[in-house]
């Protein structure tokens, strides 16, 4: 995983992007949202930011075991 495809800018070097957070579980209380993580091993939905480019926040779905990027969307869910 050395590149990422930004929905606005196209395929760019991974160094332009910053991982922000794993999407917290929905609807749970604040402490759980901040601290609790459940690892599945094959699917992780995360927020990244294209800090070295358009600075947009992205919703990225990855497979942490293989490093494969499954999907990179805008925060609104647009491809």
């Amino acid at each position, binding site marked *: 995983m050395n590149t990422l495809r930004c929905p606005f800018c196209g395929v760019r070097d991974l160094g332009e992007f910053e991982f922000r957070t794993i999407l917290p579980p929905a609807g749970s209380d604040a*402490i759980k949202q901040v*601290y609790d*993580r459940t690892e599945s091993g094959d699917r*992780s939905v*995360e927020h*990244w930011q294209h800090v070295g480019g358009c600075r947009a926040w992205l919703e990225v779905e990855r497979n942490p075991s293989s*490093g494969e990027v499954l999907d990179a969307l805008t925060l609104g869910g647009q491809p």
Partner: protein
Amino acid sequence: MAHPKPHYSAWSLLRARLAPSGYWQPLWGTRALREAYDVVVVGAGGHGLATAYHLARDHGITRTAVLEKNLLGLGNVGRNTTVVRSNYLLPANHHFYEDSLRRWRRLSRDLNYNVMYSPRGVLDLALSDGEMATLARRGNAMRLSGIDAELLDRAALARFAPEIDPYRERRFPIVGALLQPRGGTVRHDAVAWGYARAASALGVDIVEHCEVTGVRAQGIAAVGVETSRGFVRAERIVFATAGSTGLVGRMLGVPLPIETHQLQALVTEPVKPLLNTVVVSVFPGHGETYICQSDRGGLVMGGHLDGFPSLTRIGRWDRMEDVVAGAVDLLPGIGSLKVLRQWAGTNDMTMDGSPIIDRIRYENVFLNAGWCYGGFKAIPASGAACASLVATGTTPDLIEGFRLSRFQSGRVLDERGAGPFPALQ
């Protein structure tokens, strides 16, 4: 039956030299998996083996199995950069790591196995006056707890480590450093092998290629583990699975304050001695480099985490570039050396950067995890404290701060002051 374990000494070396072939025996016995144990330890890495060793030596619990899905010592105990130190700011951390450092000092004798503890000093460089003030604060906190720490100005640093040449003109000039003289390095593979040999000699079963796939429970207590070789009954279960802890949480149905991130390291081709200490330097804007020279002569170095959750054990290239750039800035002469190997390990990063040793889900299941990128130096203290918790059922004072409940109560141990972001710890 266990292999005969000769006591290692100068005399045994001589005997081995004179004996016909076949004097040397495997370090630990290969034994069949039994049906039931007092304690099952999951993971034959540093922490698992040390826990089993201390259970047997300090508490007389020898009906113990260490189950390993792969091979002994192939995980983080063999992937770190071998540095040991106790230069932490927070008392809960520095008391614990100081206990560990004292154990490192006598570990070769305790295990009768040379782990090559080398107290060559650990230097944290300051590249600005602000950093110098931060290091002074950390050093003062350590000294108040009786831990060795010396703040070096540029002249003192030039005397201690002339190879760094702090007077040389740099983009970020070196202002000074915090030195922990008793910090240094330990040969990591020897730690895994030494603990395995000592535990095996005390009667502990070490079973490789035996993957734990689940925990069977009745009510509030676990009764054993499901493994790739069938069900094994256990009175108590300890998980010491480092980078796989996130998956263990899922197996137990317990969300954990842990994300799995990667840290990479690399080593150059061996050269003659040129660096006599461990140097840690954080460069404004482009990451961090820590570097030391192994006894073979290779320069071992590492830096920041890769920055995002991953289980791949394949590091990102730009991070490696940061690490090497920092190393060349410190020691310009090494610029033409070749990198021999580069590798990555998976780190169980907690939300506050501090470890967890506590019960989890069931009253007889224990978790020894969350060591982030600092697990190696913690091994001796972690093994002793975890064994004490497992054997007696009460949490030793030394690890009272490492309980899982701290995330609920807000008493987190945020050493870096980075907030609940594992990638920043």
